[in-house]
């Protein structure tokens, strides 16, 4: 138990110690929120979509969780050769506990980022629609964070150096983000895009956040919760298997 705790604690200490990194990683979500929010706002409203900031904010929250979570998983590639990870691989502790501790830590950090972005969005004019659903929104934040931290861990367990990382960013993470309905509604799109969005697990996360923060869950909150949880469990299983196979 204390193994999991100490690894979780380590992720948190690293996060809180780097103020520059915290502020820096908030830059992109903030930029998207302000530039796209106020940029597309008028057109969106005129087309009958309502307030774009209200629509966009949950998507941007999901975005910050996605990137933070994935990066903390990917950090393993570097850590493997130069960091703490090697030390943990040689210690008399189970790989599973190490993986769980890291993943929980990374997910906690990603969730915190999401929550910070949530508060920042108030500055851009976002208004919470239903305060009673806030705990549920937090649940979706945590699920998205867990999912993508586990995914990052799984991917990093296979990659040996940072080259593959660029490929992952361009061909996996960006499509996941852009096709998730974070930036635009999924109604009335060409069939191919709708299908892609349905297959994109982040869509359910974004939908869940939108449903709890704003009102307007497309797939239904229950469906969102079910799919996210299922994929989290699968990825945790895959992640811990791959992690246990790491040879330094």
């Amino acid at each position, binding site marked *: 138990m*204390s*193994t999991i705790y100490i690894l979780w604690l380590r992720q948190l*200490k690293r996060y809180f110690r780097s103020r520059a990194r915290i502020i820096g990683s908030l830059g992109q979500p903030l930029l998207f929120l302000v530039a796209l929010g106020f940029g597309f706002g008028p057109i969106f409203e005129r087309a009958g979509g309502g307030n774009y900031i209200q629509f966009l904010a949950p998507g941007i929250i999901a975005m910050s969780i996605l990137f933070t979570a994935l990066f903390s998983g990917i950090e393993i590639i570097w850590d493997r*050769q*130069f*960091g703490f990870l090697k030390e943990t691989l*040689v210690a008399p*502790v189970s790989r599973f506990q190490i993986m769980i501790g890291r993943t929980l830590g990374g997910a906690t950090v990603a969730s915190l980022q999401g929550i910070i972005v949530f508060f920042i969005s108030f500055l851009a004019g976002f208004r919470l629609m239903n305060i009673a659903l806030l705990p549920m929104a937090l649940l979706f934040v945590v699920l998205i964070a867990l999912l993508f931290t586990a995914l990052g861990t799984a991917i990093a367990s296979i990659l040996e*150096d940072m080259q593959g990382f660029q490929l992952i960013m361009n061909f996996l993470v960006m499509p996941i983000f852009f096709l998730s309905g974070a930036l635009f509604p999924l109604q009335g799109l060409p069939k191919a895009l709708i299908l892609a969005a349905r297959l994109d697990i982040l869509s359910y996360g974004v939908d869940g956040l939108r449903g709890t923060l704003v009102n307007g869950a497309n797939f239904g909150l229950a469906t969102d919760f079910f799919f996210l949880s299922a994929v989290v469990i699968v990825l945790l299983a895959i992640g811990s298997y791959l992690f246990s196979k790491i*040879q330094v």
Partner: protein
Amino acid sequence: MIEVKNLTKKFGDFTAVDGISFFVPDGDIFAFLGPNGAGKTTTIKMLTTLLHPTSGKMLLDGRDPVTDQHEARRSFGIVFQDPSLDDELTAYENMEFHGVLYKVSRDIRRKRIEQLLKFVELWDRKDDLVRHFSGGMKRRLEIARGLIHHPKILFLDEPTLGLDPQTRNHIWSHIKNLNDEEKMTVFFTTHYMDEAERVAKQIAVIDRGKIVARGSPQELKDQTRSPSLEDAFLALTGRTIREDEASAIDRLRLRRRMRSR
């Protein structure tokens, strides 16, 4: 003690380690020397449970690293060639984490951390982030860290690589003290032949996966009729440079060096 019998490691068609055998008695200081690509690092990785051998047997303090992983791990500490400290934690925190991972109970842990940090003369820097440490300080910290759980064996993979002579001297006197006082077995690899000559009691030379010579520094010098260990080494392994391919770790090392500029 360390016992190795017919240890072999194959990567596909390539045999990195080819049926090597050696014995390191308790309290010995053992140098494992060899040219690039000879199989040193592979051997250490197998001994320290990071790699599974293709065949052969190993015993660390009586424990088999393959079948009895956790117990074997408890019996040794290791200082890797590349630092494995957490840069964004303090020296004390790095020590504490190690203690928790090796299940050293809190009170003993606290006492030992203080004792060891004082031993390597880093106690007054205990609350500083490791990021601000020099290479020598990091290496000293890693040695201190490796000893928290009082292992019987200490593995060192090129422990003084890239360090200035004062620091190198300092590090070896720390290690020799430990060997004297605690009867801790020391197993190390190095390219610094002068150090190996001064410090090691027993040496094994590995080349192309096979052990080509074994004995004390003096015995190896006598065997090859050489004035120094370096000459003996060159006599045993030849003077041609070994072809080496940059692996993933080499590329990462390059990145790291670029980063810290």
